[in-house]
């Protein structure tokens, strides 16, 4: 991805300089003190001026859940809709108004449980939406039931003997749903989060950004291993396009392809195998390697968790194709003439 994408050019630019303050609404933020959502909100509000779009042409649409209160705090247009349906509503808005920058804010319950269908279909259509999926691996607003990303055996109020269902890996799911842009980041890493937002905003089509977000009330410390500076060095794999995939203290671990299975595996880097270390290619036409990367993390311990942009490829955008068909129809048949339409083929005249 080089220059700002052509679709972004359809959205009017801000006239003057913007600051983070311009994007704060007058509403009091009501998340629990210490919630990871605050950090994401600050990062988004801080990033928006960099985007430089006219504030009135930005819309945030959300579903239901803690994170879905997000639009109230953004001084843009916004809709806090109903559970799971934000991608569908945003699809109608984005496909009818290409002059808008449309963002969806959703959570693991909202996007992957009740709204799973809308999410996968938005991804396969490649509607021009930026979807921020706040994943805290728990239901917060309903007070602590396990979610579709909770680890197997999770003890919660609704699963006192442990949850029975295997979790979704949102990145794997999105890649399987033909997503053209999939990234993962962490609420507490402002710099990384902002960089991922930058790339997502610049992507023509649906961008799915999974944000690991701490719920300090019902699932505190769920991502601690990725946040604690010392543990993170060993646990986090930072993906950068064009760079060898290495991590660990002093970059001593690397990802290589297993010639026997074709799958990826982690090895200690040695002078002998250094040349074999996989170079990350986010723009690869095939999603195979991106999918393999998404499977590296241990779902229980989160060790070997890649963050960054897994996949970012150009493919036709639904809104553009829809608009093109309208233009083509006018070219082929002329602008619609209601009188001619109503008259149709077979008519007869009754004279008075």
């Amino acid at each position: 991805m080089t220059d700002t994408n052509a679709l972004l050019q359809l959205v009017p630019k801000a006239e003057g300089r913007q600051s983070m303050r311009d994007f704060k609404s007058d509403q009091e933020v009501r998340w629990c003190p210490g919630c990871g959502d605050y950090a994401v909100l600050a990062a988004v509000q801080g990033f928006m001026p960099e985007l430089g779009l006219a504030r009135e042409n930005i819309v945030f649409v959300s579903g239901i859940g803690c994170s879905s209160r997000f639009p109230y705090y953004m001084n843009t247009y916004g809709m806090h809709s109903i559970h799971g349906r934000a991608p569908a509503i945003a699809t109608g808005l984005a496909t009818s108004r290409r002059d808008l920058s449309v963002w969806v804010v959703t959570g693991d319950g909202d996007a992957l449980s009740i709204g799973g269908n809308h999410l996968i279909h938005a991804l396969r259509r490649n509607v021009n939406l930026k979807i921020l999926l706040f994943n805290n691996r728990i239901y917060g607003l309903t007070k602590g039931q396990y979610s579709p990303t909770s680890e197997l055996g999770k003890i919660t109020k609704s699963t006192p003997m442990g949850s029975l269902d295997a979790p979704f890996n949102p990145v794997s799911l999105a890649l399987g749903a033909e997503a053209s842009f999939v990234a993962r980041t962490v609420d507490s890493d402002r710099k990384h989060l902002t960089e991922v937002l930058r790339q997502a905003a610049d992507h023509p089509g649906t961008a799915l950004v999974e944000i690991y977000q701490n719920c300090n009330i019902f699932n505190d410390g769920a991502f601690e291993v990725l946040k604690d500076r010392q543990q993170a060095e060993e646990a986090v794999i930072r993906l950068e396009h064009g760079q060898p995939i290495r991590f660990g203290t002093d970059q001593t671990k690397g990802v290589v392809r297993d010639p026997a299975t074709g799958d990826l595996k982690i090895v200690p880097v040695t002078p002998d195998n250094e040349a074999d270390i996989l170079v990350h290619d986010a723009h690869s036409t095939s999603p195979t390697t991106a999918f393999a990367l998404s499977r590296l993390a241990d779902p229980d311990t989160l060790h070997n968790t890649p963050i960054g942009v897994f996949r970012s490829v150009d493919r036709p955008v639904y809104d553009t194709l829809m608009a093109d068909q309208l233009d083509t129809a006018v070219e082929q048949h002329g602008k619609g003439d209601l009188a001619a339409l109503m008259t149709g083929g077979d008519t007869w005249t009754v004279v008075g």
Partner: protein
Amino acid sequence: MTSQVSSPAEQADGAVVGEQRKAAGEKDVRRLDRVIIRCAGDSGDGMQLTGDRFTSETASFGNALSPLPNFPAEIRAPAGTLPGVSSFQLPFADHDILTPGDAPNVLVAMNPAALKANIGDLPRGAEIIVTTDECTKRAMQKVGSDSSPLDDGSLDGYHLHPVPLTTLTVEALKDFDLSRKEAERSKNMFALGLLSWMYHRPTEGTEKFLKSKFAKKPDIAAANIAAFRAGWNFGETTEDFAVSYEVAPAAKAFPPGVYRNISGNLALSYGLIAASRQADLPLYLGSYPITPASDILHELSRHKNFGVRTFQAEDEIAGIGAALGAAFGGSLAVTTTSGPGVALKSETIGLAVSLELPLLIVDIQRGGPSTGLPTKTEQADLLQAMYGRNGEAPVPVVAPRTPADCFDAALEAARIALTYRTPVFLLSDGYLANGSEPWRIPDPDELPDLTVQFAQGPNHTLDDGTETFWPYKRDPQTLARPWALPGTPGLEHRIGGIEKQDGTGNISYDPANHDFMVRTRQAKIDGIDVPDIEVDDPDNARTLVLGWGSTYGPITAAVRRLRAAGESIAQAHLRHLNPFPHNLGTVLKAYDKVVVPEMNLGQLATLIRAKYLVDARSYNQVNGMPFKAQQLATALKEAIDD
């Protein structure tokens, strides 16, 4: 010859209005004022196409008509079985007619199953054209008969025309490079040709239609036209068909103008496009395919040059969700569905009530509950439209009365949605959707102005003098809130399904505010300006028959029969079911008896009994078919005499 023809006077509904006369071809021609034909065959026999073409020929000839397609939900049920029978009934007349007719005068049966499924509806003396080459032993066994009706005497009393339709069709197409199976497919066109001869229908339209339908397969077009002409010629030459019939154009039934034939779903689609033009807003349809509403999705998808966006969603919920999103962005937003889809959309309709955005929900009702009878008609979604949501969530309801009226009803629903910033239900049904009638094509300049004023700037001054925008500050007249589109500088605002503070639209859990908002949303809908209901009561009757929706045709036909028999009865028909016309209570109280015929178990009757404390009586039918005029007339007579 004439001895073989049943006396026209015995025929169900058609009256002979002219004496027999000799046509040029030495055959008798009789003039009738009204005929009802029915074609029946396998779902794959092309009966609906045959019916459509005969309807178009008849409409372009200028007859009044009121067709009734009737087909199973299965696309191709096993051939030759009773569940697979598909039929098309068309009455046409030289005068205004309102219903598909009670009993056909003519039945074209393409196989024994079609004969068996339909014979019960035929009065003695009716003409039956039977495809003899389908009456094999095996075919008879499929419908549970050992003997052929052609020779077991079971059709005595009918005027039977045994025609080897399949053989004749194949014979007529022998010069074409077609397999026998391919040639057999044209037998419906042979039947259409024969019927067209019998009733003096113009044929140019059908030939033109076939050429255009099979433009990419000229051989198939030519074969179908050849079969069609062979059918016509068969009628002309064979001695079995001694008489043909003329039904004069219904000139007096129609005011001057240019007419076309139009189905309910087509009229509704055109109404939506017209509303978009009159509102100067782009049309956005979010929809999921469902019978019998899908034709609206198909039709609107063909008119992208009107700026129409059609979005086939992943499910019913996404269909209305996308529409609501488009409404937020300033489109004239529509979702189309049937009863099961409405159930799925309920939560989003509630959100639209809360957001107070314009949105049309088109419900082409079908038999329920659950999947019910997908291809049959019913009016049993009225209470779902009225009350099928959580919380107090009033939604206006508009119902068309005839197929062509779907056009005007769509414009009216759009007017209410746009003026009052509310979702609106448009309740059509399967009978209107697939039925058709002549429609006087309106001049676009006659259509109502639906232009909308979007919010452009601040609408409120705070105590400190600051100018601001309040998304829930209402118009004092309509109680509508401003519609501020994204992209308008300075009006950035957030809306949602959580209760909002009056005026500011901010989240509010305040008890008094919620009470106020619930009452205000109700008052907005109650205050919608709808025209008074008109009563047709020429002789100061004591009994009123009140209907809504597609029962208009049968009720009006029944009322005419009663009045012709010297009875007094008043008739009124509701287009607006929420809110009701403001004079409805007064009208109802002016009659001793109020009868409400409905294709449900009394949903409108329940509403008016609750609202007006009127002892309305229900007359109900839920068999998937429209009322028959005679049956309704009998029921109304009982009410009058009671």
